[in-house]
């Protein structure tokens, strides 16, 4: 992830490569021209060499003819050798244009050497010698002339080349200018794009950062590049989402706290209400006692008893709520309740008790049976003009005590039973006793910590049986 560095390196490399290519091309061109140029120059030198060495031969020959000293002879020999080697060199100059002339040239040198050789064999002052000496001089002149001719020829031959070189050198300057312009243009553009590729992501990032600073966390930070900035942006974006999450969490926490606050307020309210509701029953209870005394004093003993039962029921209700009691206590309460109900229904309500006394010590939540009985009274007795029978059975079934409350009313539908057992409130016409039944189920299950503690057997029109299976163990431990 060092792509900015890579970018810079690539950029520099490209620049260097371009420069190198230009440099190499120009050097190559220079070298080529130089080689050609040297080649041509060399030709001139070879030709002028011939002229010079042939002149030297003639000079030495003259000297030798004037003074035939060994020293002069030596000189002549050596200059002849120089001419020979120059003659050999001349072969290099041969080309298609100067072929004929060059051959003549070479032969001329041959003639010069031959004549010289011949002359050296002759007597100094003989007529032939004088003639030959003159001839060597003429040949020398011919060689010089021909050298000029050849050089002229060379010039003519190479004229297009020289003109080409001149044209090329002018063009080279132009080429250099165009190259510089083009390279500058390209470099400027490349630099512009290159810097843009670095600064644009930075700008994007800066913009995103300032938006974040303003508190806008919704916009996604995206930087389209493949360098460190993109990495930075990605990290930044990650941070943004984290912040969003944190804010979300804080909001939820605040909401929860708010709800908790509300609940606390509600709890306090309900507490207050319950306290208040406790006040009323005591007041009611005392009033009932007073009423009972009054009824007794006025001779209505039955009403007095009823009022006592109601008061007892009320007291039990007030005292024992949220506490476990024995089945015996519960049955007493049921009894009292039934006395009250019988005062209402008289003969229509019949209560059958079949109780195994040995089982009466099991623990049971307070006010468990009463709501069930009440339910039975409401659903079985009340609607029926002929009344009905409520049978309560308590049986010892070794492991648990079975309490069966049976009526011969209209029965319950499966649906209602299911709803009751699911501890839901059952809406029944006119009464809201469904709440009571559901509460009973709930409390029983909580108390015994098992679900199968209550069963309801019923079908429409054939009465209802509520079966409570009260474990013995539980009761003993809790009491």
């Amino acid at each position, binding site marked *: 992830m060092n792509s900015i560095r890579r970018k810079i390196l690539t950029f520099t490399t490209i620049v260097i490569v371009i420069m190198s290519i230009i440099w190499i091309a120009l050097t190559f061109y220079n070298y080529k021209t130089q080689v050609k140029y040297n080649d041509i120059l060399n030709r001139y030198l070879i030709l002028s060499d011939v002229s010079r060495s042939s002149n030297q031969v003639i000079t030495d020959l003259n000297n030798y003819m004037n003074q035939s000293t060994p020293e002069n002879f030596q000189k002549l020999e050596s200059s002849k050798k120089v001419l020979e080697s120059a003659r050999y060199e001349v072969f290099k100059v*041969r080309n298609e244009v100067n*072929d*004929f002339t060059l051959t*003549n040239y070479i*032969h001329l040198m*041959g003639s010069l050497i031959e004549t010289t050789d011949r002359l050296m064999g002759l007597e100094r002052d003989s007529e032939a010698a004088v003639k030959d000496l003159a001839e060597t001089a003429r040949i020398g002149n011919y060689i010089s002339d021909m050298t000029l001719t050849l050089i002229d020829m060379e010039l003519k031959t190479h004229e*297009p080349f020289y003109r080409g070189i001149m*044209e090329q050198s002018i063009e080279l300057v132009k080429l250099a200018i165009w190259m510089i312009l*083009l390279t500058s243009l390209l470099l400027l553009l490349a630099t512009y794009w290159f810097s843009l590729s670095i600064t644009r992501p930075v700008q994007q990032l800066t913009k995103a950062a300032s938006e974040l600073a303003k508190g806008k966390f919704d916009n996604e930070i995206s930087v389209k590049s493949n360098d460190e900035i993109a990495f930075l942006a990605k990290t930044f974006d990650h941070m943004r989402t984290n912040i969003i999450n944190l804010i979300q969490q804080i909001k939820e926490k605040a909401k929860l706290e708010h709800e908790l606050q509300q609940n606390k307020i509600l709890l306090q309210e309900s507490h207050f209400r319950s306290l208040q509701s406790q006040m009323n029953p005591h007041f009611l209870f005392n009033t009932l006692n007073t009423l009972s005394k009054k009824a007794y004093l006025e001779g209505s003993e039955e009403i007095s008893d009823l009022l006592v039962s109601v008061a007892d029921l009320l007291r039990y209700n007030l005292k024992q709520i949220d506490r476990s009691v024995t089945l015996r206590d519960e049955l007493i309460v049921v009894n009292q309740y039934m006395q009250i109900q019988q005062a209402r229904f008289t003969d229509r309500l019949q209560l059958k008790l079949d109780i195994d006394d040995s089982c009466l010590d099991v623990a049971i939540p307070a006010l468990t049976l009463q709501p069930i009985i009440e339910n039975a009274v409401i659903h079985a007795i009340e609607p029926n003009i002929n009344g009905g029978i409520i049978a309560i059975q308590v049986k010892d079934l070794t492991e648990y005590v079975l309490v069966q409350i049976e009526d011969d009313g209209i029965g319950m539908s499966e649906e209602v039973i299911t709803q009751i057992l699911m501890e839901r409130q059952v809406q029944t016409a006119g009464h809201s006793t469904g709440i009571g039944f559901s509460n009973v189920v709930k409390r029983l299950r909580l108390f015994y910590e098992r679900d199968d503690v209550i069963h309801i057997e019923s079908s429409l029109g054939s009465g209802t049986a509520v079966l409570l299976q009260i474990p013995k163990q539980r009761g003993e431990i809790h009491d």
Partner: protein
Amino acid sequence: MKKYMYTILGLVFVSLCYLIFVSANIVFSNDIALPKAKKQTDSRYRLVLITRDMDTTFWNKVGMGASRQAVKEGASLEIWGSYSNNSEQFLKKLELAIHSKVDGIIIQGLDTDEFKELTKVKAAFNGIPIITVANDVPMKESLRRTYVGSDQFRAGGLIARQLLNEMGTEGNVVLLSDEQKEYYQNERLKGIYATLKVYPNIKVQYAETAESKDQVITTMRDQLNQMPDVDAFIAVNANMIGPMVQEIGKRSQVEPYFIYTFDDGPESLPLFEEGKIDGVVEQDPETMGEVSVQQLVKWLNGETVPLDINGYFTKIRILKDNRNE
């Protein structure tokens, strides 16, 4: 705005690329072809054609024929020479050719001692064959291998006969010749005399002059003074026809005179075209060139040894001026 920028940048880029392409093409083009270097000369024979009258129509034609034949034979041929009959330069070229050891020399003959010395002694000493062309020199004096060109004796006869045809067998004729008395001119003269001598009524006046223009004019003046009733002129040396016609023109009309010459002078044919000359002996210079090269190569190859001493004659014909008829 951005679009404009891009367009401009694109244009600049493209034009720069184009300019670079053009310049680079010129700079790096290798089309300056230098002549190919050679190790050995590949033509079999190196021949030289030497003349004293470079760049005249006649000798250009000889050169053309010779070059063409040389290409055919695979020999290389160079044409050397001097201008305006400069003998000194001409002889220098001959000597140069001998010292250069060319394989053969085709040369316009020059009837001087120096020339003969060079051909007879130097060339023969170096074993270089010499063929004279157009203008011959005697074989014995020059040791030339052969001669290629017109039969000058016959050419003289031809011109004399034409004179007889037009002028009739009676009249005065001025023959203008060269002081140098070159062999070919002598032949022409011989031819003319041989034809004319049978007509006693034709009076021939022979004049010699140097070749320079002033000399020719002076001589012509003398001749015209000496023989006012002259009827015809023959320029044996064709180079003299120009000043001759000029001098005649100064005196009177050129038309009445019968003027004849040969075609190897630079002014012969133009004057004939103008109608100032009545007849020109036309030779065949191209064939001369061709045959000379051909014979020389034959000799060098050893196919025809020796060559015909008398020479190989090329065609001649007389050009007549038909306007008078």
